[in-house]
């Protein structure tokens, strides 16, 4: 197909869009709203995933201190821990607090501790490693490193629950992809149906163009371009709406839904581009299927 043909196709696509602006507006509205459904789900899913990962990826360590250290040593340990890469010093638990926690934890059995003369529990610093890929972290090496610090008695970390969380994240991911797949099918179906209807309302055009000797492609191309444009515009509208929704929900005071203050993150660029691309592709596929129909009849 030469350049001149493309000029015709595009020209006619735009003439058609103008001539059928009502139908196009309706169709774009439908495509946009189904893409909004899709995009909102992706956004929700992405955030759930994000929260899960953030939660799951925070490896926490307890650094137990020797009983007899002075304030200076303690301050030194504290500053050393603070400077560990991507670590966050959560809290300092004194010997007394440790005992209180233990009594609470034992509940009815706390009578067990009644015989103790002195508090055998060590004080500790609790640290959390955030925003790191848990697989790249070497907790064992870290533990040994920290234990070398003067005044540190022992370092403990628990890994077991990580597996559980990772399982949950995995379930969420699989469920998410299944739902996204279903949604995608529904959106494809709705989009192609809508474009089918727009073309159906103009089936006389197809007939007349064939009567003046237009090739199948000459007839189809403007419809395909129109479909692509509808999808593209629908995608852009959907994305704008989702962005707006995002801004609305991520405002400082989102207590309308009573959610605990969770940090809402927006989709990464790749996902954004994907929604627009999806609109474009759906528009193309929709018009392709739809226009094909009216050639056999």
């Amino acid at each position, binding site marked *: 197909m030469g350049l001149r043909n493309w*000029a*015709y196709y595009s020209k006619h696509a735009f*003439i058609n869009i103008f001539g059928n602006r009502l139908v196009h507006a309706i169709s774009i509205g439908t495509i946009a709203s189904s893409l909004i459904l899709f995009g909102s789900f992706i956004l929700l899913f992405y955030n759930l995933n994000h929260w899960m990962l953030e939660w799951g990826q925070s490896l926490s360590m307890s650094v137990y201190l020797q009983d007899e250290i002075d304030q200076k040593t303690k301050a030194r340990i504290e500053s050393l821990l603070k400077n560990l890469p991507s670590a966050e010093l959560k809290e300092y638990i004194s010997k007394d607090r440790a005992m209180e926690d233990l009594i609470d934890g034992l509940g009815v059995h706390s009578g067990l501790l009644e015989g103790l003369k002195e508090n055998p529990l060590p004080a500790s610093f609790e640290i959390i490693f955030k925003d790191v890929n848990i697989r790249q972290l070497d907790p064992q090496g870290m533990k040994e490193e920290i234990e070398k610090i003067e005044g540190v008695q022992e370092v403990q970390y628990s890994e077991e629950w990580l597996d559980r969380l990772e399982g949950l994240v995995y379930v969420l991911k699989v469920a998410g992809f299944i739902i996204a797949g279903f949604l995608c099918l529904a959106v494809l179906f709705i989009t192609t149906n809508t474009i089918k209807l727009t073309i159906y309302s*103009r089936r006389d055009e197809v007939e*007349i163009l064939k*009567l*003046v000797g*237009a090739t199948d492609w000459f007839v189809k191309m403007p419809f395909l371009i129109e479909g692509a444009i509808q999808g593209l515009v629908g995608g852009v509208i959907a994305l704008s709406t989702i962005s707006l929704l995002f801004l609305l929900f991520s405002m400082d005071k989102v207590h309308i839904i009573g959610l605990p203050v969770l940090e809402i993150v927006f989709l990464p660029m790749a996902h954004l581009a994907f929604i627009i691309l999806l609109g474009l592709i759906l528009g193309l596929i929709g018009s392709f299927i739809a226009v094909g129909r009216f050639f056999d009849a």
Partner: protein
Amino acid sequence: MIQLFRVSKSFGTSKALQDINLRIRKGEFVFVTGPSGAGKTTLLRLIFGTEPPTEGQILIRGINLNRIRRTSLDLLRRRMGFVFQDFKLLSRKTVFQNVAIALEVTGERPAIVRKKTHQALKAVGLSKKEELFPLQLSGGEQQRVAIARAVVNDPLILIADEPTGNLDPDITRDIMILFRSINLRGTTVIIATHSQELMKDTEQRIILLKEGRMLRER
């Protein structure tokens, strides 16, 4: 140019055409006439390849329409002009675009498309209505757009189905002069009509149909 051998066309049980044998030579000017429902439109549509015959063979310029490929039919249609009884204009495109489309499908250069389209519209007296839409035209004006579209690509064969049914005597005369001049330049012209007046003072060949059969020729 155009040959029909034992052609029949049925729609369900009703027989629109029966056993038609016909030969139209290059450059001929032929009228097809007969009462309403006689099969005139059906005959023209068979020649144009819009409908396949139920029986028989149709040859256009030596090509058998029964065996023609889709793309060749497209090419053939570009060398033919057809004025449809119900005009078949694109209601969402302007008069100019409606006529230009017949050239654009051939891949003609834009400058030439413009020039020829203006000429054709001028020939049917619609220069002033180029930017209007078909529904903004009177019935006769719409019919003239359909005529302009049929003649704009200098067709080898021009087929017109009741092309003056909505035109007044003066314009009818102009249109007939247009058809004659196109015919003189070598185009084969076939016109279906009821109008006795149209055929009155001509020496042209006339094919008379009745209930799907060819009754006589003159």
